[in-house]
């Protein structure tokens, strides 16, 4: 199998000319530093020693976080920028959908722009003529094709740009997140077109955050992170690994948020409604709550859980003196500040008897049946009449992930059943 795109040990260093921000030609000449000033003084490594090959006729997805070097890699493949080290080899005619309609001139008509854009992308005038009708039909712009492009809506603009680029009939098509634009039906049309290119043995390299698309469309996936290749291969496996790593960094982020929230928690008492969402911590501290943790099924503290996981809320309580009147409570809020669930020992008819010294409290949930989203947690100890000992309001943030993007708050365990005459693919 021959390769259509081949990157061998490619690095890309972006030079930053930060020190020269206010330098002028005059001062550069005066200081005789013209050439020196054209030299970089700071380097940013966008890609580090990346190698991968895209076999001819395959569709490959490039995934990774923002700033991971995906777009840089695509620009290198397109030849728009040159690698600082290593080699990029591309066989066949390239068309890059990096920005649709990048070369359009607003004042002239769509027709003229199609011609110029086509020529820019490497077609001859005759080739554009041959494809002109297909382009216009694909873009669904027949009646507007003679109007100046500046009168087009952004959707029309994108459609025309896409139509031209895809009709260049490239051997290698590079796509950078352009499917995010356009309405549902146009997106479908684009996907169909990708499918058609695939069948005709063309090579497609897609940069996208739409992981579902990669899973559906791509033969292979490459995951970049921090400019380095992390994994390459079967899309399912690569996406899985990528998602795990995203979770890991989310955990760290949430841990940082939580630490900050606890440190800066202001000792103020909420005015009015207890269910109003304001962060904070207050109370007499006769019973003090510390070390609040969310613990997953594996017994490890975490901040990210999957819908349906077993989760425990664990915390430490210290009673300064033996106390008989106490209630422990927890509640969960979603990002909109809606209380999803709240309970305490009093509500659940547990009459307090005594607490003294250090204690450990665990609130175990067998199934965390919440939909995907970010949630905040309240933990509190107070008297039965509500006088707070230590009230932690929304200091703890955790995230629930789900493969299904169902809506609402509560995701009960469920199943569908159908009579035999209802079928799904």
């Amino acid at each position, binding site marked *: 199998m021959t390769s259509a795109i081949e990157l061998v040990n490619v690095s890309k260093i972006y030079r930053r000319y930060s020190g020269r921000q206010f330098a002028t*030609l005059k001062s550069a000449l005066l200081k005789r530093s013209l050439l020196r000033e054209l030299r970089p003084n700071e380097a940013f490594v966008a890609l580090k020693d990346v190698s991968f090959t895209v076999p001819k006729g395959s569709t490959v997805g490039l995934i990774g976080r923002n700033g991971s070097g995906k777009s840089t890699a695509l620009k290198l493949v397109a030849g728009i920028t040159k690698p600082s080290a290593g080699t990029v080899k591309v066989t066949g005619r390239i068309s890059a959908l990096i920005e649709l309609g990048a070369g359009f001139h607003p004042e*002239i008509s769509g027709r003229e722009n199609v011609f110029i854009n086509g020529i820019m992308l490497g077609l001859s005038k005759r080739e554009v003529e041959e494809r002109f009708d297909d382009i216009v039909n694909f873009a669904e712009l027949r009646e507007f094709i003679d109007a100046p492009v500046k009168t087009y809506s952004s959707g029309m603009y994108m459609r025309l740009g896409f139509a031209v680029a895809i009709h260049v009939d490239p051997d290698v098509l590079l796509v950078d997140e352009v499917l995010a634009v356009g309405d549902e039906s146009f997106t479908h049309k684009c996907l169909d077109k990708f499918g058609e290119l695939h069948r005709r043995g063309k090579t497609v390299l897609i940069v996208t955050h739409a992981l579902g698309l990669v899973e559906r469309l791509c033969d292979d996936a490459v995951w970049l992170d921090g400019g380095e290749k992390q994994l390459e291969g079967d899309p399912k496996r690569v996406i899985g690994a990528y998602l795990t790593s995203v979770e890991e960094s989310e955990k760290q982020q949430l841990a940082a948020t939580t630490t900050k929230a606890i440190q800066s928690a202001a000792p103020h008492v909420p005015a009015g409604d207890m269910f109003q969402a304001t962060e904070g911590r207050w109370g007499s501290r006769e019973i003090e709550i510390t070390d609040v943790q969310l613990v997953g099924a594996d017994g490890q503290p975490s901040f990210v859980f999957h819908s349906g996981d077993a989760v425990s809320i664990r915390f430490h309580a210290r009673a300064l003196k033996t106390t008989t009147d106490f209630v422990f409570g927890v509640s969960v809020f979603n990002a909109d500040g809606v209380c999803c669930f709240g309970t305490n020992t009093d509500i659940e008819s547990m009459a307090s008897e005594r607490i003294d010294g250090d204690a450990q409290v665990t609130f175990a949930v067998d199934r965390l049946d919440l939909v995907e989203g970010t949630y905040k947690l309240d933990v509190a100890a107070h008297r039965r009449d509500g006088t707070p000992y230590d009230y932690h309001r929304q200091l703890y943030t955790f995230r629930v992930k789900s493969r299904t993007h169902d809506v609402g708050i509560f995701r009960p365990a469920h199943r569908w059943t159908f009579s035999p005459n209802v079928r799904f693919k």
Partner: protein
Amino acid sequence: MFANLGTLLRYRGLIQSLVARELKARYRGSVLGFVWSFVNPLLLLSVYSFVFTTVMRNDNAQTRPYAVFMFCGLLPWTWFAASLTESASSLISGGNLIKKVLFPAEVLPIVSVLSNMVHFVLGLIILAGFMIGFRHLPNPAALVWFPVVVAVQLIFTLGLALALSALSVHFRDIRDLLANVLTLWFFATPIIYPYFMPTVERFLWLFRLNPFYHLAVSYQETLFFGQFGHARSLLLLGALSIVLFLAAYWLFDRLRDSFAEVV
């Protein structure tokens, strides 16, 4: 570098259609449309003629009819100055193309120069009209040199345009500086005054250092005075222009990779 220079020929079609687009787009939306290509130089000429034949009367018998004389130098100057001004900002305003499309950047300054050349050629039609109107026709023997003069100016302008466009990506000040330099340059060149004025002759060595001096003199001699005696200087300038063009292209090529990052 020479490989890149070769691919430039492949982009003929692109350059051609971009020049056409430039010309089409420029007057799109105006009432007179393409007529402006004629009206613009005409208005410019009227202003200058009014100033120098009425306000500041010029009594040199050799430069009569003055309007025709001045037009011979003004037309190429306008081409030159507009080309440089436009190409200095061509890469910056065409940043989208350089960053997002695989696009030979040198096409942009070249298009600036060529589209202004089209305006120059259209201006020549007006000049011809004036010559007929004033019954001051050029001498065919001198006129054969005219295409050579245009060719030299084209190469000279292309060289400067390439260098300026590449440098102004890194030094945006060039665009502002350029406007002032061009004003000075205009007055330092015998365009509104004849090259045989006593003051010019006194500082002739200084004037001869000005490349556009040779172009202006050549234009005036071939088109107006009907006697071309500047061939040697012109051909020397032509040779230097080729060197300038190659040097500028080399510079452009060196800086090429930084465009997509800095623009």
